């Protein structure tokens, strides 16, 4: 990576005053703009912009990551949310401006890489560069006097350099001196190019997955089933080219869910393990199979993976309306809010007569009455379960056809039930308990507790493309950071019969190596290979 754009030059400094330059022709302007875009300065600016642009997405809730958090945020900050929507701040990483930055960065990268691949390709096939006229001026050089002939010295030098994995070229220069030129370290630039090209590969792989893949989340109550159709998902994020008809037609049932918590000690209440037994079939009518689903061990069906990501409680609730009819009955998932599984949930009863009913409140798996905070949950397991609810009547907001979350209550059309003294009608239920609502509006019964599992179902095609892209990038990076390109020259001429003057010199093209010591070592190896005894200095 270092020195990817070696041609960069500083333009600062006192430029002499010039007559105003003639306006650029369109072609010149385009060339100028291209130079600017592909310059290292611009690339650095774009890198910083990318870093800064990524920040808001870690502060503001993101709809592709956590749609519920976004919905909550919208309720709390309606005015601000309008601005965020305009700026795309609820989906930073798929917003136009974020895309613009990385597309520019990629163009800048390509504009830099393509010419350099050409240069590198030519360099690979070129002979090592000829020796500079004045080897003494190079950063490291030595002069030897040997009794071997120039031919013998050149052969020795060539053999030695080849042994050190230099590419070697031998020639006689215009003064008739024998020159051995060597070059090595081509892997640095190769690594450099591989690293940058790999980044493009990673981006393409991620892009393909984003276009053709999908990601969804679903909550399934213990004992219930799921079939892979769009309507069954609680959250669903499709890629741009995703077609709902492509969903593989598998289905499964959650047969049993197990969870254990640390019962004592300093980590009391921490989850120890949770897993679920599934029965699944790959398509309707296929043989059902069993799978033991655990965290970190997803179930793979036809390229789609089912992950166990969470769990919680679904109290079973029965609501009778004012007319005495059962207008709702079943388990309702309450979403965990903290480590003790204090869980928030909503029950909407649009079928109740004469008025629609709604309930919101908390499920507490292990109830304890705190003198200051009131009812709280002190342990995540179901030891002393209780429901504390507020009740509403009015319009639950399901009739106007607008999609609403089942985990949130829009209180706009609702009125709270109140006690005769004007306080909100708050109830607390233990399993099996029934509470009658005021004014003959009906009753609610807490039948018992089920558990649910939260599953993530996703399909990410071409996963191996970014994987191998990053692996190649790391290898390239190592090459570009740790390989040191080097050139070396050995020049021999006969000074007088039986005495050959040998100049040895080297040039490092990346800082960090101990060039002087290596040239010393090279000199003594040449001396030894030429059949000379080690001379006293």
């Amino acid at each position, binding site marked *: *990576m*270092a*020195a*990817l*754009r*070696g041609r*960069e*030059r*500083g333009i*600062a400094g006192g430029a002499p005053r010039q007559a105003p330059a003639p306006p650029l022709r369109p072609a010149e302007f385009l060339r100028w703009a291209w130079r600017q875009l592909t310059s*290292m*300065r611009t*690339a*650095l600016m774009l*890198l*910083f912009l*990318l*870093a800064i642009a*990524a*920040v808001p*997405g*870690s502060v503001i809730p993101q709809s*592709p*990551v956590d749609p519920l*958090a976004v919905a909550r945020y919208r309720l709390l900050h309606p005015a601000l949310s309008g601005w965020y929507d305009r700026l795309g701040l609820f989906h*930073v*990483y798929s917003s136009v401006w974020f895309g613009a930055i990385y597309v520019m960065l990629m163009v800048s990268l390509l504009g830099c890489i393509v010419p350099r691949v050409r240069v590198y390709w030519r360099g690979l096939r070129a002979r090592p560069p000829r020796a500079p006229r004045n080897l003494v001026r190079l950063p490291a050089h030595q002069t030897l006097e040997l009794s071997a002939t120039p031919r013998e010295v050149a052969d020795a030098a060539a053999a030695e350099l080849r042994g050190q994995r230099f590419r070697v070229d031998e020639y006689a220069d215009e003064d008739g001196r024998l020159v051995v030129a060597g070059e090595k370290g081509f892997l640095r630039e190769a690594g450099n190019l591989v690293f940058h090209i790999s980044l493009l590969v990673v981006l393409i792989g*991620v892009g393909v997955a984003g276009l053709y893949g999908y*990601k969804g989340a679903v909550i399934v109550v213990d004992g219930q089933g799921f079939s892979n159709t769009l309507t069954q998902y609680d959250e669903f994020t499709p890629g741009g080219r995703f077609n709902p008809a492509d969903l593989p037609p598998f289905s499964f049932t959650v047969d049993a869910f197990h969870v254990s918590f*640390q019962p004592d*000690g*300093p*980590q009391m209440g*921490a*989850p*120890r393990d*949770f897993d679920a037994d599934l029965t699944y079939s790959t398509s309707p009518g296929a043989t059902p199979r069993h799978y033991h689903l655990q*965290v*970190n*061990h*997803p179930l793979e069906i036809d390229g789609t*993976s089912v*992950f166990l*990501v969470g769990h919680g409680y679904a109290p079973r609730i029965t609501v009778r309306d004012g007319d005495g009819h059962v207008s709702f009955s079943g388990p309702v998932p309450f979403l965990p809010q903290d480590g003790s599984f204090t869980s928030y949930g909503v029950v909407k009863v649009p079928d109740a007569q004469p008025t629609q009913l709604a309930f919101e409140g908390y499920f507490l798996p292990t109830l304890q009455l705190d003198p200051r905070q009131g009812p709280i949950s002190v342990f995540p397991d179901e030891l002393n379960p209780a429901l504390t609810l507020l009740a509403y009547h009015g319009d639950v907001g399901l009739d106007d056809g607008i999609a609403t979350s089942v985990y949130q209550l829009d209180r706009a059309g609702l009125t709270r039930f109140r006690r005769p003294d004007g306080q909100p009608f708050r109830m607390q239920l233990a399993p099996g308990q029934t509470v009658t609502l005021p004014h003959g509006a009906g009753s609610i019964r807490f039948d018992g507790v089920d558990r649910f599992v939260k599953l*993530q*179902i*996703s399909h*990410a095609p071409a*996963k191996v493309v*970014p*994987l191998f892209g*990053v692996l190649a*990038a*790391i290898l390239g*990076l*190592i090459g570009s*950071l*740790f390989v040191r390109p080097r050139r070396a020259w050995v020049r021999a001429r006969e000074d007088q019969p039986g005495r050959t003057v040998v100049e040895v010199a080297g040039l490092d093209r990346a*800082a*960090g190596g101990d060039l002087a010591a290596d040239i010393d070592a090279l000199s003594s190896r040449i001396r030894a290979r030429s059949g000379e005894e080690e001379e006293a200095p």
Partner: protein
Amino acid sequence: MSTADLAGWSNLAISTATVVYALALLAHVTEWASARQVRPVDVEAGVRVTVPTGAPLPPVAPGVEPASTDPPDRSAVYGRIGLSLTLVAVGIHAFGVLSRGLAAGRVPWGNMYEFSITGALAVTVAYLALLWRYRLAWLGLLVTGFVTTVLGVAVLVFYVPAGPLVPALHSYWLVIHVASAAVAGGGFTIGAMASALYLVKSRWSGGYLDRIPSAAAIDRIAYRVHAFAFPLWTFAVLCGAIWAQYAWGRYWGWDPKEVWAFITWVVYAAYLHARSTAGWQGKIAAWIALAGFATFLFNFIGINLWGSGLHSYAGI
């Protein structure tokens, strides 16, 4: 020895190590303070030279010990005391980390306390490993100061008793992902210290600053350490992505931790580019390296404490 005993030994060792590091820090502070009277020394010739303030100092080859001219060179003595104390402390520290792992029956980096003590160990070990090769003794003050602070905060604020892991961490990727992140973090820390000292050295001179290598030499060391840490950080992020694919069903989901890992990566990439760009070398590049370290620290501290997201079990 029972696991409870081991956990107790671990706590004792970490607290003791913190105190010994603090003593080492004190020795290094004295080392710097007592170098105030020492006049600049031309380390290559071993001859005193007078250097006008602000003038570039004679280049100091790393690896050349400053020739001692005052026979009882107090500064050097305190430097050696500091280093000896650091060696003692790192032994106790390593025992504390090891016994913590044995007490919990797993690798000792399952929560913020454990990551802090392991990360601090990575910093000291990186410092000691490079000490002989690059003569890093002049980093002693910053390293002991940093490690004392990290351990102190870990013991006082982040401490949680040893125990088993939450289910999402039951994976061997925990070992690879966090270990590589910790070692890369150790590298970034040493690199940031070198870059900070480079900035100090290129602005001020006098006292102890005249005994440390030249600004150019410090800059080279900073670059080498960063060049080592950056590919490792890339690898750590890659391992995190593979693990995320197994645990959460997606390899990259812009979780706050992932966002900041990406930001850190981008800023250090900018550093490596800046170092080879005319007009950006030297001070600007050093500032970029410090910015990268700030994003790394924020990811570890800020996101764990205030952020929400899938990595939040890594919190206290």
